[in-house]
């Protein structure tokens, strides 16, 4: 082991500050294993050298990558199933009722992580709409460039495809690529991934029929939440639908939304007349 106690402490403090995750003493080997590839990529002999170089010349991108390497966990496909059941069961039929048959359906997966949510939506819509490949466009955005690149690649590890992806969908929509699984080109073409910081002015995109903004607001203070919800609303069509995480709501944050109960969950719609 090459990791010094000082380096380990520095990494512990960094990860705690940035992610609130506590690395217990004794997890030196974890730090070593997760950061060694990054050190080697930079031609450094070990993790302590990597830590030293960042301490001497602070660099936000590298710091962020260190935190990501130590905190990234695989996310689920049909995470909290309700927003997906509601998509094909209620939201899509309602939208199609108000659209011409050739009008596109536009969806935004905000804070898309490695793309599971965007591709879950793509799989569901390609089953529900015969012309989905032509008609549906899904914009996936994330703060992290690495996550955007992973979404674009559409490749997932064995552990990732085990997380709540039905086996029938795995064999229908993925092919093996080495020890990973790759999403079908048709579905990948439905998804466009770009970097985007939700807490800052948003890039030109939309307007969207459906926005998935789940488990994002919980990380921000009230003023930032209000700013995000306002900017998201500006990018939505007046009859659009917004899905938040199960523990999130617009109530008490932004009055310009109407809560609609959909099955066991709920969605939010821009309030009329605003």
């Amino acid at each position, binding site marked *: 082991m090459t990791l010094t106690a000082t380096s380990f402490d520095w990494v512990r403090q960094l990860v705690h500050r940035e992610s609130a995750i506590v690395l217990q003493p004794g997890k030196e080997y974890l730090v070593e294993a997760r950061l060694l590839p990054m050190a080697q990529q930079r031609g450094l002999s070990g993790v302590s050298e990597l830590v030293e170089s960042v301490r001497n010349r602070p660099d936000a991108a590298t710091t962020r990558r260190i935190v990501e390497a130590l905190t990234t966990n695989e996310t689920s496909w049909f995470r909290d199933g309700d927003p997906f059941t509601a998509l094909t069961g209620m939201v899509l039929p309602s939208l199609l009722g108000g659209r011409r048959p050739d009008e596109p359906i536009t969806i935004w997966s905000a804070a898309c992580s490695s793309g599971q949510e965007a591709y879950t939506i793509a799989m569901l819509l390609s089953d529900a709409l015969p012309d989905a490949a032509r008609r549906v466009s899904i914009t996936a955005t994330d703060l992290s460039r690495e996550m955007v690149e992973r979404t674009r690649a559409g490749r997932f590890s064995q552990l990732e495809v085990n997380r709540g992806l*039905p086996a029938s969908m795995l064999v229908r929509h993925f092919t093996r690529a080495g020890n990973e699984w790759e999403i079908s080109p048709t579905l990948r073409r439905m998804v466009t991934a770009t970097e985007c910081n939700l807490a800052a002015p948003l890039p030109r995109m939309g307007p969207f029929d459906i926005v998935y903004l789940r488990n994002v607001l919980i990380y921000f203070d009230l003023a930032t939440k209000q700013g995000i919800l306002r900017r998201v609303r500006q990018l939505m069509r007046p009859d659009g639908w917004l899905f938040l995480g199960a523990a999130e709501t617009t109530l008490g944050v932004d009055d310009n939304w109407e809560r609609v109960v959909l099955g066991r969950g709920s969605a939010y719609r821009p309030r009329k007349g605003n």
Partner: protein
Amino acid sequence: MRALVIDDSRAMRRIVGSILEDFGYETRQAGDGRQALDVLEEGYLPDLACVDWNMPVMDGLQFVSAVRSNPAYRSVTLMMVTTESETSQIVRALAAGAHEYMIKPFTADAMRDKLALLGLLPQEVSL
């Protein structure tokens, strides 16, 4: 909820069994497909059977076919839990009647996700 864990590895039976017990299941174990059929014939009808593929005496695919061809066992949900991970193998298992398929290695979180998909996650531990 009741589960039958079928694997020739004792370690794997313990791992799968203890994950399911953490989710509120009562579990029984069998070391191969034949032993598992004996358990069913005894009258123990689980909600879920987690079945390894490669086992001595009777493998998981034969077990799945046998269970699915007996209407008395229709209520049993079958999930293959195996290291076989080629698309062709997954298709074979689904065609034989497996309801879900979990590739080893997997985490407890992955098991929870699969149970949720199958509607077999007891309510009180749903998150």
